[in-house]
């Protein structure tokens, strides 16, 4: 199976928050829970850069490693999901996560945080029925053959989601076109999906994915 990832092209990200509300649209998270967020560094200076961040579905996910309840699991696509029935809201995943992805409905005395919520790569989560899945985790677009809505709706195609190899190829192409050094960027490795990557066009990837549905 191929591994799914997000990539945010900092050269293209314009901090329009389209990904943030697209996520709300797909998953209808509560007020205060933004599975995806925008971070801008050096605001108002020539070095200003904006980046869209959510759960990156790490290969070796720190959240999984530290969870006392072992509520996380990885799908065959490399998507890190968690079981809200197991989550006890201890906050360890947040302490460990490099991206600040896990969020809790609240933070109160005696470590009461409610159930952790994070990006599911629009792949839902463990539930008995569709209704339950949507209520707890939001959309399961992956099951419908679609990619996460945040990436599909990205205003400038800065945020991309898809198989690692496809993303790598797209991104390498962009960087070469811009004459950027590839040194700063560490391409992803995933041998199994190499043959599909070459056929995917720069910006039509998400389109293709949705058409396959």
């Amino acid at each position, binding site marked *: 199976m191929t591994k799914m990832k997000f990539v945010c092209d900092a*050269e*293209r990200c*314009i*901090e*329009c*928050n*389209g*990904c*943030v*509300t*697209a996520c*709300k*649209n797909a998953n*209808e998270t*509560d*007020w*205060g829970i*933004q599975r995806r967020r925008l971070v*801008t560094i050096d*605001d*108002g*200076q*020539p070095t*200003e*850069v*904006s980046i869209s961040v959510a759960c990156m579905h790490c290969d070796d996910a720190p959240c999984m490693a530290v969870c006392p309840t072992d509520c996380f699991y990885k799908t065959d696509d490399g998507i890190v999901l968690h079981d*809200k*029935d197991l989550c*006890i809201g201890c906050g360890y995943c947040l302490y460990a996560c490099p991206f600040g992805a896990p969020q*809790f*409905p*609240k933070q109160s005395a*005696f470590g*009461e*945080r*409610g*159930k952790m919520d994070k990006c599911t790569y629009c792949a839902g989560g463990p539930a008995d029925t*569709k*209704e*339950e899945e*949507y*209520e*707890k985790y939001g959309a399961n677009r992956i099951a419908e053959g*679609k990619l996460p*809505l945040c990436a*599909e*709706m*990205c*205003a*400038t*195609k800065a945020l991309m989601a898809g198989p690692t190899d496809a993303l790598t190829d797209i991104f390498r192409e*962009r960087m070469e*076109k*811009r004459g950027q050094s590839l040194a700063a960027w560490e391409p992803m490795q995933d041998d199994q999906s190499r043959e599909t990557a070459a056929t995917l066009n720069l*910006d*039509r990837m*998400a*389109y293709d994915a*949705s*058409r396959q549905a």
Partner: protein
Amino acid sequence: MRLTRKSPTPSEPGLGISRRQFLQRSAATTGGLAAAGFMGNTMMRRADAKEKTLVSTAPIEIKRTVCSHCSVGCGTYAEVQEGVWTGQEPAFDHPVNRGAHCAKGASLREHGHSTRRLKYPMKLEGGQWKRLSWEQAIEEVGDKVLQLRDKYGPDSVYWLGSAKFSNEQAYLMRKFAAMFGTNNTDHQARICHSTTVAGVANTWGYGAMTNSLNDMHNSKSILFIGSNPTEAHPIAMQHILIAKERGANIIVVDPRFTRTAAKADKFVRLRPGSDVAYIWGLLWHIFDNGWEDKEYIDNRVYGMDKVREEVAAFPPEVVESVTGVSKEDMYDVAKRLADNRPGCVVWCMGGTQHTTGNNNTRAYCILELALGNIGVSGGGANIFRGHDNVQGATDLGLMSHSLPGYYGLSEGAWQHWGEIWGLDQEWLKSRFDQTEYADGKPMYANGITVSRWIDGVLEKEENIAQRSSLKGMFYWGHAVNSQTRGVEMQKAMGQLELMVIVDPYPTVAAVMHDRSDGVYLLPAATQFETTGSVTNTSRSLQWRDKVIEPQFEALPDHEIMYLLAKKLGFAEQMFKNIQVNGNEPLVEDITREFNKGMWTVGYTGQSPERLKMHQQNWHTFSFETLQAESGPIKGEYYGLPWPCWGNPEMAHPGTPLLYDMSKPVKEGGLTFRARFGVERDGESLLADGVFSKDSDLNDGYPEFTAEMLKQLGWWEELTDEEKTAAEGKNWKTDLSGGIQRVVIDHGCAPFGNAKARCEVWTFPDPIPKHREPLYTPRRDLVKEYPTWEDMQSFYRLPTLYRSIQEEDFSERYPLTLTSGRLVEYEGGGEETRSMSWLAELQQEMFVEINPEMAKELGIANDDMVWVEGAEQGRVRVKAMVTPRVGRDVVFMPFHFGGMFQGKSLHDRYPEGSAPYVLGESANTATTYGYDSVTQMQETKVTLCRIEKATA
């Protein structure tokens, strides 16, 4: 862009969604608590269940619609199940946005779920909102309007329409005002791009964006001046970044280091209000180095020599003094533009919303003409319009100075439209006040503009060029907080006899007045609850499906117009050619009616059938050229960008690039319009030896008339019917379209082939001049660059210039105040602030202050401050200390409302309809100042002072 600190819960929960959210939040709270945590999680799940859209297995209907937030015109797929908007899928096949959305577009589905709507007709009675039935509301409002009309004449009621209307609704609204007997109707284009439309149209023919967004891929340089697409037109950035990746040089000239500047190759910080001096500074280097396109100027441009004379007065040291930009930076930008052609210039409100707006827009045009950038792919004046249909509403004449299609208000114009409406001229005349005032007879005189309705109410009656001051106001889709002079506006609202707000949301107009009676709220449907066409910034018309039924008791705008027209007694005349089903006029019939009359701008070929065909075939259009590459409409351009000549049967493909002579007119080519006569001071105004491809006339030519056709020997090519219709007419007035058909067959442009002009002899400054803003911090420049003299009667009102600039405010108000947009909100923000997904992102009104200035004023980030404008309007806002703004400039976003000079107006909203986020309106602190051609308001330069708010 935002402040960091935000409330973790929606503020001030009222009724509606907030109560639901409250329940759902508390459910989550108990769920996390000991008991539920201990006993497992099933309890919590159940309690939570109500909040989200229900998962349904009902069949999914897919609707194609277009985002209603800005003029980029992004398409999207709406999934509807059993009448509920359950899904929104990106339209990857849409030729403009390819599925992409900004924060607003990505949350469109919430339009189908927002409960903070105006839910039913209401009236304010003794300070309380009282629910009415529609019948009762129409009855009461209608009676009051008739009473005002009787007592004060038809010009006493103002019909403020909207750029959020569909083309059909905008057209119908203009027709409505005409039938009511007044030109006192207008919409937001007045305070958006009116100076562009006037300036650009007077330079080369049409006041619209010349190229398409997609064509910007081909630009080699893009100059943004007073434009911030990353926040205002985010999806345009997709095209701009593609251009950048293909090697285009991106230059941003702005008082602020915007998000767009962060993506630019070059950023230049400009002093607000010095655009003309800046452009002349660039041209100084261009002329100095001989970088201008001489051949292009010779063949296609009139009056460049006079520009040279003016430019000579702006050598680098003068430019540096006026604009604050160094010689090196000026040279650098000029060279980038000269070396990277074709290039385009993009401007928005930063250029237009000035007292000198018309000068600014013309200066930008002149720069493009000097570089030979107009009429070529990758070049152009790419003016990004604001609201989703501000281009369409402008074209369809929802303005106080023209009938649809820019026909103006002359007797001829009335005859033209009267003929299309099938109405007797005498009846039309009888609707108007036939008295002669300072501006002439009201029927033929420009009406009061939206920017000035405040003065239309407050000004002494003897100074207004109509029978009385304004007594009744209809705010039909208008955000009053996007207008300047909030304090005086409140006063004006108090003096009105009738206020009617027709809108999906209550809007700030419903709460900012101090009235206890005489205010009516009528709930209108959104554009997702009706159908019709919408024109995007690059002149493409798109058809919208109705996604859902109108929510609550809302009605579509055209239905409300019908109900009112019926009550006011002119429904029969108004809907003569339009089928009415129940109370709802048939949208397609309205399209067909304006198709019959919009010859000037080529809104004649876009029949509803053709538009729907385009809507169904998004996937066939090229992302590069917007041309359909396959399918049933192969060869046509997306949305039949106007001018789409002739009648629908002629199947003109639309004009993707204006004035592009490399294509035959039949295939979308065009020349500059011969709009200003054929000669001036003995010099020909017609093009010199250049013409569009395949033209039978190989030189410049004037606009076509029946007479010309006869002289050329082309008359016989008309059918007999066409001959009858065309006799004595011209390309604009021949209702058969025959003249257009024949001249296009001959490869000619119906409107002639002329030069663009740099000198607009009908304007106050024929050659654009730098003039200091009315409220300027640079008193030393006032003498050399003074503003105009006061005007006695201009759009029916006295308009002040010199008498304001004379007084020095800079001592007490040392800071320059400018305003602009945020990506999360749109316009006055009432709609977007009522969407929880968006409101959450931007919860507080703020003012940007430079770190140095903040230190000087003793203000820290997140402090509450008072910003006081030079006319003493005060707003209490949060300080955001950021280097985005220069040292002496402060910036406020204008989307907030619902707070007034430190006081919350929350409780004045009808129950459960207050937006999630309220805040001070930037425009409470803005000041007087209107453009000398269009009455555009000044929002980008005024003076203010800032002090830390205690408590």
